[in-house]
């Protein structure tokens, strides 16, 4: 199993551009999550999903959108990128909300 995979690994965006961060898991997990980690800080939850077709906001959802059309994929969309969105983005998945979350390798995004 590949676990949780994320693409791209690195990306530089100009202010106002848009992009989609891809996340795929092959563990048949129902729950998937997007976090951002700013330098020297813990992770903050952006959005999460408890199954295909069901998503909900986390702590810091502004400026982001998500969709969950399949169990495996949970893309994160950035519209109108801003410098404040410069961060490392982690996708995670878990079997249920009681189990630990498994994290992808992260996407390092810089907005200039």
């Amino acid at each position, binding site marked *: 199993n590949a676990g949780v995979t994320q693409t791209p690994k690195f990306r530089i965006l100009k202010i106002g551009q848009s992009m989609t961060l891809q996340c795929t898991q092959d563990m048949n997990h129902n729950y998937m999550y997007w976090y951002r980690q700013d330098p020297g800080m813990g*992770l903050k939850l952006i959005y*999460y999903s*408890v199954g295909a077709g069901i998503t909900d906001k986390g702590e810091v959802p502004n400026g982001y959108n998500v969709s969950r059309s399949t169990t495996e994929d949970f893309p994160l969309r950035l519209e109108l990128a801003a410098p404040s969105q410069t961060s490392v983005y982690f996708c995670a998945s878990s079997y249920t909300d009681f189990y630990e979350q498994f*994290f992808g*390798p992260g996407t390092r995004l810089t907005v200039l």
Partner: protein
Amino acid sequence: ELKVEQNPLFLSMQEGKNYTIYCNYSTTSDRLYWYRQDPGKSLESLFVLLSNGAVKQEGRLMASLDTKARLSTLHITAAVHDLSATYFCAVATGTSGSRLTFGEGTQLTVNP
């Protein structure tokens, strides 16, 4: 709003010594997770604590949870250099328990 506080935030210790990292949180929860992060890497699950009094041990690390005191500890026994990393605790909230709030992390350096 749930607050999760870890202390210390920075810990430098010698090999062979013992130490404890503390994780305090501000609202009721009976689910707490510990993760490890190496520099520039993703997060690795260490422990899942799901009830009051839960204690888990793996190698030189032992984690415990006191839900009444809203406190978890991560105890390090006879530290070795390989334990150098940043350690995060995360507390579950929400009706489905899917939302994790992370502490700021404790950056541990074990010196020879």
